[in-house]
């Protein structure tokens, strides 16, 4: 059998590599290994509504025919257990060995485990996979008291899902504020206030010490007291799945280390994309690992194009992200650093807010609440490298600036 491209991981990024290879006319063998039994699917919906049954399995990126028509050998429920870099083969749990000319690691991330006593009780869940989401959806149907451990994106989304299902919801967060460094301190109280208005209770600066119950969780013991709980969901961050790479001797450091073309710094025949990869980015001071659909999609496509023989491009896509938390649509464009100067601006209606982050006087990132148009305008301007200063933004919006810019483009 002639060797082709082997992709380890059938998620958003792995799908992006495989579909791009074929879209660019690559005609060698393409094999995708996915350790889950499901067709590659989108994760964002998993934490944004309650999933309870087979109808909710419709999060697949594309139907099965897509792979068949393009001769993509999709091997589901089949985990790759080792790489042999000298022989250029991968070995799967079933014993199957497949040779590669190019190998792409798209193994994603796994949830950081909750390590307090009682974390293994029934009724304690994290959400990463479709199966996790179905388990939480079913538990939510009968839960009266829900405790969410971790005030990150997934925790806040799940808090609002639980609230919408009629539960009493408490979010326990160790740090003094929600979303840690992901959201600017200026915007955080505004987001928090919106959730509180809807009835989410927050215990920030609070540690979870133990989960208790007879087989099933009934109480959460925290540094601020004991909370009743029929269901505990936690989202306390994720760690890259990098064991395969590490065991094969590739450089890893909280992610498979890659260069600007997304090739492993240790082996040019191996690339890494998505949640498992850490590499340079023109908008960041050091190598970054991003966990977003944008990053998985754009990195997958970039590697697909390169392997298919297109001119190699350094990875430079503008990072962006969204999180739908009940009636709050949070969107982020660009990468904010803690030292950036942030200016908060209200939009033209009370629910709209934007936080503009400036570095050396220039706009580098924009966080918006319920203001998709401003988010898109930010993406257009930042992606084009249009310099925007605080003075440019005085008394106006990025939307207005982007419209004006577009009008000039049309004229010239």
């Amino acid at each position: 059998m002639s060797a082709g491209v082997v992709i380890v991981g059938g998620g958003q990024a792995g799908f992006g590599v495989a579909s791009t290879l074929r879209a660019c006319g690559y005609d060698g063998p393409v094999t995708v290994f996915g350790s889950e039994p499901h067709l590659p699917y989108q994760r964002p919906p998993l934490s944004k509504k309650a999933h309870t049954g087979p109808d909710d399995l419709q999060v697949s990126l594309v139907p099965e025919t897509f792979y068949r028509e393009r001769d993509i050998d999709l091997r589901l429920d089949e985990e790759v257990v080792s790489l042999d870099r000298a022989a250029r083969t991968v070995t799967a749990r079933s014993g199957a060995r497949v040779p590669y000319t190019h190998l792409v690691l798209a193994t994603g991330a796994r949830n950081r485990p909750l390590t307090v006593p009682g974390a293994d009780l029934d009724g304690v869940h994290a959400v990463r996979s479709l199966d996790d989401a179905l388990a939480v959806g079913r538990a939510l149907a009968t839960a009266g008291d829900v405790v969410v451990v971790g005030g990150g994106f997934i925790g806040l989304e799940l808090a609002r899902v639980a609230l919408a299902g009629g539960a009493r919801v408490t979010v326990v967060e160790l740090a003094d504020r929600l979303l840690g460094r992901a959201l600017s301190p200026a915007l955080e109280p505004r987001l928090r206030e919106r959730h509180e208005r809807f009835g989410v209770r927050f215990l920030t600066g609070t540690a979870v010490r133990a989960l208790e119950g007879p087989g099933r969780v009934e109480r959460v013991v925290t540094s601020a007291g004991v909370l009743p709980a029929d269901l505990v969901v936690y989202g306390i961050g994720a760690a890259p799945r990098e064991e395969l790479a590490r065991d094969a001797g590739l450089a890893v450091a909280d992610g498979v280390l890659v260069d600007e073309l997304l090739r492993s710094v240790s082996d040019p025949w191996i690339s890494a994309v998505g949640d498992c990869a850490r590499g340079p980015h023109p908008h960041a001071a050091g190598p970054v690992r991003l966990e977003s659909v944008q990053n998985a999609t754009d990195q997958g496509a970039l590697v697909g194009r390169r392997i298919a023989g297109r001119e190699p491009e350094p990875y430079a896509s503008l990072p962006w992200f969204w999180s739908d938390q009940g009636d709050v649509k949070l969107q982020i464009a660009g990468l904010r650093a803690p030292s950036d100067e942030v200016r908060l601006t209200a939009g033209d209606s009370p629910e709209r807010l934007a936080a503009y982050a400036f570095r050396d006087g220039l706009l580098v990132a924009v966080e918006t609440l319920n203001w998709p148009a401003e988010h898109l305008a930010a993406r257009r301007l930042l992606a084009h490298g249009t310099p925007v200063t605080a003075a440019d933004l005085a008394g106006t919006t990025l939307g207005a600036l982007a419209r004006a810019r577009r009008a000039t483009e049309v004229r010239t």
Partner: protein
Amino acid sequence: MPTVIFRSPDGTAHQVTAASGTVLMQAALAHGVPGIVAECGGNASCATCHVYIDPAQTGPVGPPNDVEDEMLDFTAAERRPTSRLSCQIRLSDTLDGLVVHLPEEQV
């Protein structure tokens, strides 16, 4: 089951048949129609599922909703009076025979 024709800027046509109730963007992705990116998976967050409805059919398809209307100002390709986000359109039997034109670029 309604049938939709997607026309690429180079004139290629892709005919797609999908169940009533299917989101137009999903119908395109499911059939591998090139030119719809849909980065946000239909969440009205990305505007990379931009399409032009055939001018003769904008009536039955209807106008964009408020959020969509604003987002359409920032699509990668130019906005036209017939611009819509395909993730905000549900197919129905009344839309059988719909013709949709794909823009030059989405990102």
